């Protein structure tokens, strides 16, 4: 029991070191450094804003399109970059995995935590945009933010752990993930409002846990409302995904070193 607690504590230190290694290594030789965390979602939002305000106007109610899509783009970017990094985290460090014992979860989890920092940086611009557009604050809703983030983390962990483990056995996972993320992007209400989705498809639409998560972010930040019941569905889905992903990871983790 004591030994296990010590091991966990030490894994905590390793997690911290490995996370900061990922962050530092990523920005070590780049001139713009952490600014890239903002540049990427901003560039995408700029393009979609041009398309969906000038070319094909989309009705986002009384919320300006820029902030409407940026609020969604930031968590989406976090999910997409995390999953990509997590899926490669074991494969890129196979020499370590086959030679030294440490809790294997550290590698994918640290990959996600390193992207969580980018998420934090990009989120600062959300606050700036809210001030600029004078969006009224909704304190009760803000209490929900950690809950929504927690649900998103569970979803990311579940998928990321499974992808990282599966990638050790089949490199197809990497390509499959890129393809999946592209489709998933358009299947989530990031660049268009849910109101454009036909009524009869809505219930299916919310089976995508990211739909509920993104809508919940908009509810508490932009609409001044508490999240709708779809968040509960997202939470349940994410929990299932997390359980399966983690179970799968633990089940195959001792086979990693046997694959040469």
């Amino acid at each position, binding site marked *: 029991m004591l*030994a296990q607690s010590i091991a966990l*504590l*030490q894994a905590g*230190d*390793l997690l*911290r*070191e*490995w996370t*900061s*290694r990922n962050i*530092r*290594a990523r920005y*070590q*030789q780049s001139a713009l450094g952490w600014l890239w965390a903002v540049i990427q979602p901003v560039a995408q939002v700029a393009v979609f804003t041009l398309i969906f305000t000038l070319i094909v106007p989309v009705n986002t109610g009384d919320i300006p399109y820029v902030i409407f899509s940026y609020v969604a783009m930031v968590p989406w970017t976090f999910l997409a970059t995390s999953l990509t990094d997590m899926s490669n985290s074991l494969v890129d*460090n196979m*020499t*370590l*995995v*086959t*030679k*030294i*014992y*440490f809790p294997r979860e550290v590698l994918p989890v640290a990959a996600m935590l390193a992207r969580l920092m980018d998420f934090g940086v990009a989120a600062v611009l959300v606050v700036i945009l809210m001030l600029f557009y004078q969006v009224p604050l909704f304190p009760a809703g803000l209490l929900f933010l950690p809950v929504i983030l927690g649900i998103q983390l569970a979803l990311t962990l579940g998928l990321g752990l499974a992808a990282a483990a599966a990638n050790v*056995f*089949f490199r*197809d996972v990497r390509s499959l993930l890129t393809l999946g993320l592209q489709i998933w992007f358009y299947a989530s209400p990031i660049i268009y409002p849910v109101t454009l989705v036909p009524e009869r498809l809505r219930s299916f639409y919310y089976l995508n846990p990211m739909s509920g998560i993104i809508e919940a972010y908009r509810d508490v930040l932009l609409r001044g409302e508490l999240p709708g019941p779809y968040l509960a569905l997202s939470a349940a889905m994410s929990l299932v995904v997390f359980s399966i992903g983690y179970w799968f990871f633990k*089940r*195959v983790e*001792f*086979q990693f*070193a*046997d694959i040469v």
Partner: protein
Amino acid sequence: MNTVIRFENISKRYKLGLTRTSLPGVISQWLKGSLKAAPQKADDDKYLWALRDVSFELMQGQSMALVGANGAGKTTVLKLLANITKPTTGTIQTQGQLSALIELGAGFHPDLTGRENIYLNGTILGLSREYIRRRYDEIVAFSELERFIATPVKRYSSGMIVRLGFAVAACIEPDILLVDEVLAVGDASFRQKCLKRIQSLLEDGTSIIFVSHNLYLVQAVCSKALYIQKGRVLLDGETNDVVEAYEHDLHEERARKFEISDLEQTDGAADVEITKVEVWGVDGPAAGPLPSNQSAQIRVHYDAYHDVGIVSMSVFVMRSDGLTCSMMRTKLDGFELELQRGQGVISVHLDPLQLISGTYFAEAYFLNESDSMVLTSAGGRSDWFSVKGAARSYEETSGVYEPIARWHHQHNGLQAAHLDSVREPALGSAETESR
């Protein structure tokens, strides 16, 4: 003393090659596997048994070597102990904190500084940040890299990286330490440093499992040894006995290869066979260790099946790890050898022997007159013999031979004709000093 490692009836099976074809196929295979635990019947073509029914125990403070050819299963044993992989059958119990020194500088990132990599590498090895912080100055001092500690390691030389890696590893104080060929890298002084560290850990009660192809080092570090061959334990006992058995097999293996490939053979049966090679001390067959500063002789017994004529002979003195210490050739020394039908003995005197303490053997070959062809089908090989030099153990000295050394010291140059130290030439005057 308590048992810190109990390795019981361990077998480990690896899958060979790509047996799975499609992703869906594998997923269903995994799901099925989780439902019925019993493995399907083993197919010898599809699986490789890396270990078969291996058992051993290690007591606290003991050091054990794993010896065996490449692919015998030594690394698999370490991987199982380090919890990197699971046994197919059997149980492993370990007591206390276990660390593995399998790769120095594991996880080093080239873009990060020496300092950052110390923390990274340390936590990978299972140390806490707090512990590394306390030992940080010590680690840096040990690595002798104070000036470069804020430089990214990609600008380090490979030697510097090894030094930094070892400096971190050296501050581990585990209950059980696994060492795998780490000492193969680095120069002699680095190896010496590592060896010292390992020995001080042993004194503090750490138990060590040691894998190295350097049998000399194995004998210096370990009190017991396990000889593994093709995944099975062949011998478990005192280091010297096990190493001797392993070397014997190695030698036979080498002789077999030599016989098959390297030699141009005479047609049909050999003309002459070496029947025995003996090593004698001053007064006959060596009973105990031969004193390094006294003479010894190597005696080669032969049996010639007919008149062979002019031949030459080569005699090797080999150290137990296979290093050739000396090669003596009749042709080189201008000693003419003519063999006639019958038996005889050829002896070569080494006066004095001048080897450092250790275990050796002698090997002899007959060659044709021009030294271009080996006449005997296999070289004759002596039993092991040990030599007792001035140094009592391996750590006290290094090198291969021990010249008769005389020391002089002059102060203020009153006797200008003397050098600071004088070493006797290898085969010099009759006056030998006893030490």
